[in-house]
């Protein structure tokens, strides 16, 4: 039975909303700012050992021999994990599509630099690192596949010999009459794009402490796990354990951003614990491991794409060909990022037909992992640059060409060609507001004056749609099965009326514990300080997933509201009974009191009701349990199985934003300076506005990195050339603009309280917005930058080609 949720904060059972939608101080922050949050590296268990991992120096090689005898003899070493142990005890990692995973330690051959080949558990990390230097490995070096084009070359070396090819999946999706709209187009704009690898680098790298119980043959994994239940299930497959014998304890995380690579580290620490007789083993990925092979690399893509247009600028077709380098294996779920653009393939626009021709390959580079945005950031870079190229061709202003192609407010819910349904939006209102905020006309005047002086100043107006609240069905096309992503909460009152909410995920920075507390406090009219939000191990939580796909804010709101509604129903029964046998529907909840509708002066506070349930069983209705606790598990309503072209209702919400950016390119150095940055966004109800603003500004920072600085460079032998923060250049406060922002609110009609996912939107938009601004700056020269990052050197080389460098 579908439950009716309050559609807006004003529909909560309170006469004055005090928390939802307000800039509430986050309940997470005291522990964070005081340094007392129990991050994984703070965990010390009795007898705990420390793990270090020996990694392959070769991109592709057979492992002929691993001799660990000298390491085993070193004082302080308790266990050494070798390929033989792993062959005996573990399975290759599960992947989608299946069959492209490897064991946690290479058992026959290594397929990327940094792949683990052996590991040590010792009394300290120092000793463990000394010991791995004593392990003797013989390799037979094989020719390496260094790039995606090399992977599909006719006589390319093959990584997975059982497949006989490096192609994981080749699939063409066709939605609508693509050939016809391109045939009938007045204009076709075509370009190639190269998105080089960048990725997630949280402040805290991955870490875990694993303990194998040899008596019970069960495993406990403490760690910085973003999605604890999911990781626990995956461990049961890779380590041959029943799923209910793997318990995952998620610790607060110093950021995640999708890439935190826990599978190998967890399996290695677990097997070392097993080999060490059940002593706990801690593995903390160091920064170089994280950069080399820790799930910090994403999106290694080559695009060829076209837009079909009518003479008036109406876009009729979008044709995308993608060659995607997944790196050496797909066990970190990088394949999913190729499927996600289906959820918002055509962005903010009415485009009648689209095609997506995808080729996913393995190479001897490090495996790619999820990163904030999960696929759309490169996709929207392509789409938005093509729209700008079309605007230049048709001599239209970039704001105008977008405006004339927008999905109109009255067209929602709107089904895009790739099948997803957008819930709501008003793109023109967002555009108008940001143009006003930026004083767009004045910006263009400023640009004209700069151009007259020979300066390269550019302005972009770029918008994207952010699919929020992911569903597994979005990834069916790359082999993931299922519909629905359960997210649960257990809400309990104690005898004095304090509320405890147990959720299945831990802190990562986004502030979702605060959202849960806001919702419960407003629902029951209590002070937010009397609500405690906590997490529990996987064997003590309701079904859950955790952070991912911009969903927890919406999902936890649904789960907490669901539990609150169940409690409200029980409370009404109790109060009705006490008030002389009134039926529950004669009672209502308002401002923290269960009161008699006909006589509101009569009633009890929620604390009194909970106290009665736990302390005065004699007053309860016959047969009622003394249990003011309710669990609710939410999943997005109305999701369905995809058809043969991958079309389905997948991501529940469609937020949007428009960025207006002004940049200047230095003709002498090629350096891009961001002069001005404006954002107007619409993510429906802003549950905690301060958190939304933080998500926006933070994702802009990552977008600046992707657009201008961050790149994992490999040489012709697939050897990584960027393995430290000296060379991997994340932007700092000096490079990131403090954006000027405003917003509008178009509530989602399909989520509790009208909120939409908002964790990734600025990452979808910023790289496109910056490159579009650079290309506007370069437009008088007739050149474009279609490769990320647009480093100073790349831009200078392009300027030099046309004789425009100074």
């Amino acid at each position, binding site marked *: 039975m579908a439950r009716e949720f309050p559609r807006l904060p004003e529909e909560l059972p309170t006469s004055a909303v005090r928390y939802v939608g307000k800039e509430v101080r986050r309940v997470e922050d005291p522990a964070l700012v005081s340094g007392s949050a129990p991050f994984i590296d703070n965990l010390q268990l009795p007898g705990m050992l420390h793990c270090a991992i020996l990694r392959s120096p070769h991109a592709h090689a057979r492992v002929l021999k691993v001799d660990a005898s000298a390491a085993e003899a070193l004082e302080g070493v308790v266990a050494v994990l070798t390929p033989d142990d792993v062959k005996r005890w573990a399975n290759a990692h599960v992947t989608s599509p299946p069959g492209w995973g490897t064991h946690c330690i290479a058992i026959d051959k290594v397929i990327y630099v940094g792949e683990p080949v052996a590991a040590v558990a010792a009394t300290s*990390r*120092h000793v463990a*690192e*000394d010991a791995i230097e004593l392990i003797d490995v013989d390799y037979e070096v094989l020719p390496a596949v260094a790039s995606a084009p090399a992977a599909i070359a006719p006589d390319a070396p093959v990584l997975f010999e059982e497949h006989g090819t490096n192609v994981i999946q080749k699939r063409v999706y066709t939605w609508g009459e693509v050939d016809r709209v391109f045939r009938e187009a007045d204009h076709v704009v075509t370009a190639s794009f190269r998105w080089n690898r960048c990725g997630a680098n949280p402040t805290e790298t991955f870490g875990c402490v694993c303990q194998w119980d040899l008596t019970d043959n069960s495993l406990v994994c403490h760690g910085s796990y973003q999605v604890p239940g999911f990781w626990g299930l995956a461990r049961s497959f890779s380590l041959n354990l029943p799923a209910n014998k793997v318990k995952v304890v998620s610790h607060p995380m110093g950021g995640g951003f999708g890439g935190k690579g826990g599978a190998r580290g967890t399996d290695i620490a677990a097997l070392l614990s097993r080999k060490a007789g059940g002593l706990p083993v801690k593995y903390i990925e*160091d*920064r*170089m491991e994280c950069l080399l092979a820790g799930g910090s690399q994403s999106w290694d893509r080559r695009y060829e794409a076209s837009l079909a247009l009518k003479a008036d600028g109406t876009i009729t077709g979008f044709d995308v060909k993608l060659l995607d380098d997944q790196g050496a294996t797909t066990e970190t779920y990088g394949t999913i990022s190729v499927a996600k653009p289906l959820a918002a393939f055509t962005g903010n626009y009415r485009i009648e037909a689209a095609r997506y021709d995808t080729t996913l390959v393995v190479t001897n580079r490090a495996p790619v992992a999820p990163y904030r945005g999960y696929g759309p950031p490169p996709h929207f870079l392509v789409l938005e640059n093509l729209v700008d190229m079309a605007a230049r061709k048709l001599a239209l202003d970039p704001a105008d060409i977008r405006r004339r192609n927008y999905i109109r407010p009255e067209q929602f819910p709107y089904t895009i060609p790739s099948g997803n349904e957008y819930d709501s939006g008003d793109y023109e209102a967002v555009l108008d507001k940001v143009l006003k905020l930026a004083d767009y006309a004045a910006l263009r005047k400023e640009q004209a004056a700069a151009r007259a002086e020979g300066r390269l100043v550019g302005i972009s107006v770029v918008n994207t749609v952010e699919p929020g609240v992911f569903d597994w069905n979005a990834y069916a096309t790359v082999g993931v099965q299922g519909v629905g992503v359960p997210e649960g909460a257990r809400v309990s009152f104690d005898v004095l009326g304090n509320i405890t909410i147990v959720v299945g995920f831990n802190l990562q920075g986004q502030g979702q514990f605060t959202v849960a507390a806001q919702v419960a406090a407003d629902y029951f009219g209590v002070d937010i300080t009397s609500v405690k939000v906590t997490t529990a191990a996987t064997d003590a939580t309701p079904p859950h997933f955790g952070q991912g796909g911009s969903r927890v804010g919406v999902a936890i709101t649904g789960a907490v509201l669901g539990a609150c509604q169940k409690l409200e129903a029980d409370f009404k029964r109790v109060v009705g009974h006490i008030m002389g046998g009134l039926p529950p529907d004669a009672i209502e909840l308002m401002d923290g009191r269960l009161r008699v509708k006909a006589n509101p002066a009569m009633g009890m506070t929620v604390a009194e009701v909970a106290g009665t349930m736990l302390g005065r069983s004699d007053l309860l209705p016959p047969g009622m349990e003394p249990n003011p606790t309710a669990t609710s598990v939410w999943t997005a309503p109305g999701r369905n199985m995809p058809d043969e072209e991958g079309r389905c209702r997948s991501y529940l919400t469609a937020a949007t934003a428009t960025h207006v950016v002004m940049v200047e390119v230095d003709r*002498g*150095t090629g*350096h891009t300076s961001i002069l001005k940055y404006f954002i107007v966004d619409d993510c429906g109800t802003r549950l905690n506005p301060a958190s939304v603003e933080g998500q926006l500004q933070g994702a802009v920072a990552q977008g600046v990195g992707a657009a201008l*600085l961050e790149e994992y*460079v490999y040489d012709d032998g697939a050897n990584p*050339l*960027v393995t*430290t923060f*000296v*060379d991997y*250049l994340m*932007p*700092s406060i*000096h*490079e990131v603009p403090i954006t000027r922002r405003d917003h509008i609110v178009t509530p989602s009609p399909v989520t509790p309280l009208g909120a939409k996912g908002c964790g990734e939107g600025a990452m979808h938009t910023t790289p496109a917005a910056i490159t579009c601004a650079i290309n506007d700056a370069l437009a008088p020269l007739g050149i474009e930058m279609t490769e990320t990052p647009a*480093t*100073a*050197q790349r831009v*200078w*080389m392009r300027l*030099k080609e046309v004789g425009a*460098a*100074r």
Partner: protein
Amino acid sequence: MKAASFDYHAPPTVESAIALLQRFEGEGLDTKLLAGGQSLMPMLNMRIARPQVLVDLGKIEALDYIRAEGEAIAIGSMASKRAAEDSPLLREQQPLFHAATLLIGHRQIRNRGTVGGSFAHADPAAEYPAVALVQDIRMRAQGPNGVREIAASDFFVTFMTTSLEATEILVEVRLPPFRPGTGWAIQEFAKRHGDLALAGIAVTLRKANGRCEDVRIGAFGVNATAVRLPAAEAALNGQSATTENFARAAAVAGESVAEPLGDVHATPDYRRQLVKVLTERCLAEAAARAA
């Protein structure tokens, strides 16, 4: 990322430190001096540097000073870059050295990094060596046989290598007086604020009757050590201080750099371009400052 094992000593005086260096030299041990650790500590942790012994100069308070000595300014090698940044003496009397200090890393790095450490580390992308070349800064090294002075042009040998002997410690850098009226500039290009420069230029020049003289141009980040660019200096010496002449000298600067470094961030060609652009900008800035 844990350092390999090493023995650690933190002597209280220069003399005791030199005695330790002599002892370890005699024992054939690979010994490194620690003078702030902003470069050496990461190298230790990555096991790129694996000395058997580390002699920490951090306890030698006698090397922590910045003072006027006559017209010159003497900086003890263990003075922090932050102290140089905050020194009114340097700010007022040595504007180029002071400006170079502000380009080094970030304030957190300058808090711990030392002036002497930067000279002795001899990173090709460091700012101080180029300033030392254009300003004739002299290094004072102390060893078992006493103190000797080394000219900047003799001090920097190649990548991370100086002419200091294994038993010598850099105890002081000595800045000659900065002549009033001298124009100066230092600019560098890094992908991010505070990063090691892909290329940098330090310039001093004087003007007489509208013509440039005593033009000195130092480049860093482009070769194994900082270098002077004599051809570009000659191209401007005696010429009037005009935009065209700066551009001509800058073009010579770019062309005259011998075999610029190439790496993942900048090709040799791009470094040549940066030398040209930065030289042109520095000459204009310096000329504007010259009296």
